[in-house]
């Protein structure tokens, strides 16, 4: 156990380090000649040299890498790198704010969006997957899988816009104001408004995810239902309901947990399209805005954040699968 987890943790750390080095390489490409970009117009050669020295661009690359890790992807000011304590992600000059602070202020929105959606799509996928697996090829199965493949083929931005068109715009022309057009209300401020504002975004993500998850639940259920121990359970006279939900589902759950964890991590890195459509001021929107305005420290910060979520979730999923069934995960 400990050995297995240690190996995975070491691998995860190494991956993260590689991500850091790659982002460093990116900034070097970005600031092709940072001194010239930063210097005021008509700057003398002396000023340029001064900036080059201040940015330590005259030093060998491994020292530059160290500065990058220690000071962050910014170019001046206090040390704000990941290897500095407390770890930080640099400073955004455009927004005049530390990147870490900026990202932390957006996390509640993205977290509410991602976690809420996760609960909804997991529940629905499991219910629909089990329902479809009861009698494969039946009418129910076909309707469910048609619905799910449609969800799979519809891009998030199309579903999102159509949902807000029909459920917000069209409804409100009839005077029904169930859903707001967008925006975010904090959970601690008003839980009801919080859920009301997030309902359509949750639905958008659910439609996108359910296509994959329902299919996996169904396939695994069928797999398990065909196995010997289910036949034994049936022979013993265990009720069908218990067989489906107790015996089969439990075994079929592992792949869903793995997939769900990784998908959650991807969303935590920014449910970019959904946030954009519903005007949710989360991490994803921050990333898009920064990329479009050329705010590199923020873009790099969000990239590192997303990669970290991904690597950590891979690790956590591994621990959970291991605890559930030590033999299965070698």
């Amino acid at each position: 156990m400990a050995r297995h987890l240690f190996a995975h943790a070491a691998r995860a750390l190494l991956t993260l380090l590689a991500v850091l080095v790659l982002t460093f390489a990116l900034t070097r490409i970005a600031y092709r000649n940072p001194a010239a970009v930063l210097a005021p117009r008509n700057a003398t050669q002396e000023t340029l040299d001064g900036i080059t020295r201040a940015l330590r661009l005259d030093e060998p690359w491994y020292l530059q890498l160290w500065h990058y890790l220690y000071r962050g992807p910014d170019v001046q000011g206090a040390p704000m790198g990941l290897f500095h304590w407390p770890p930080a992600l640099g400073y955004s000059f455009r927004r005049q704010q530390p990147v870490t602070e900026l990202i932390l202020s957006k996390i509640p929105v993205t977290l509410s969006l991602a976690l809420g959606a996760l609960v909804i799509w997991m529940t629905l996928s499991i219910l629909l997957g089990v329902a479809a697996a009861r009698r494969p090829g039946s009418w129910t199965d076909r309707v469910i899988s048609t619905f799910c493949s449609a969800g799979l083929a519809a891009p998030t931005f199309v579903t999102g816009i159509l949902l807000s068109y029909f459920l917000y715009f069209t409804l409100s022309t009839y005077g029904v104001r169930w859903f707001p057009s967008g925006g975010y209300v904090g959970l601690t401020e008003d839980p009801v408004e919080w859920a009301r504002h997030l309902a359509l975004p949750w639905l958008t993500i659910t439609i996108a995810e359910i296509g994959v998850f329902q299919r996996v639940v169904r396939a695994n259920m069928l797999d398990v239902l065909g196995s010997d121990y289910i036949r034994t359970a049936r022979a013993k006279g265990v009720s069908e309901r218990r067989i489906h939900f107790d015996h089969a589902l439990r075994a079929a759950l592992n792949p869903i947990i793995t997939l769900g964890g990784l998908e959650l991590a991807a969303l935590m890195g920014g449910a970019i399209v959904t946030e954009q459509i519903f005007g949710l001021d989360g991490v994803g929107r921050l990333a898009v805005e920064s990329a479009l305005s050329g705010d590199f420290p923020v873009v790099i910060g969000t990239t590192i954040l997303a990669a970290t979520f991904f690597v950590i979730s891979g690790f956590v999923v591994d621990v959970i699968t291991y605890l559930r069934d030590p033999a299965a995960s070698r």
Partner: protein
Amino acid sequence: MSSPPVLEPAGPAGPCDAEDGRRFPALRAILAERSTRFGLVLVGLVVLSALLAPVAAALTGHGPDQQFRAEALTTEGLPVGPNAEFLLGADGNGRDVLVRTLYGARISLLVGIPATTLALVAGTAVGLVAGFFPGAADRVLSFGTDIALSFPFVVTALSLVALNRGADGRPVIDPVLLVILVISLFAWTYFARLTRGLVVVLRNRPFVEAALTIGVSRRRLLVREILPNVLPVVAVYWAVQLPANILAEATLSFLGVGVQAPTASWGNMIAEAQRTSLYQVQPWFLLAPAIAMFVTVLGFNAIGSGIRNVLDPQR
């Protein structure tokens, strides 16, 4: 272990078919699948519209980027709905939505096909080496794949596109080319894992041992014996990966970092319809590219599931 989130096919079913002696029995079985046929019809429609886009432009006399402010906008400046001259109405700039949607099909294929092909070539090369040389080479390449997978697609794509800006603020390389490169930078991992899995199985087959015994060089073995066995399966999965990449282009264009206006892409058309809210008066402005996108992805997905049913029946 740390297997990726991709729903990757379990490979080994493929190469056995190629060994049968008959050329492509799997292909015939795939074509007999109902969902493959359904998908082929939809994809055929999309390819046809891409090819016929200039014809539609010539027939209507509306270029894809041409603005008809006098005819296609009302006096309040709102786009007209479908009529005899603008079959699907106009967009906010008085351009023909139908013609632009057809041209959008070209961009989708023009980005999706090269990106997927590039990913296939790179991924297959990596997978061949990783699968054939266990030990250090395999470990290094698999670690590289892990790293590539841990970069979030959209955020990284955003930063790469953001970096594509010279000192004067103009893009350094063509945005379309960049989108192709960015997409293939992520998609290769899928082919690498697939190929590696196939090669690991093949490596232990008698014919490989036999070839090694009679002194065939490893390079020749890899290129002449293993590659031909892997290629049909990989080529089939090219079609499975293509819709994901078409969707990726549309997503980037929707976010404003992909194909740039005025070039028509379904992604940037939908973005424009949403940004201006003009779809509320002219729904086809949004619906035409949205339906096109849906049909394309649905078609390729159907082909993909037909392929999976044959090559990977246990799923």
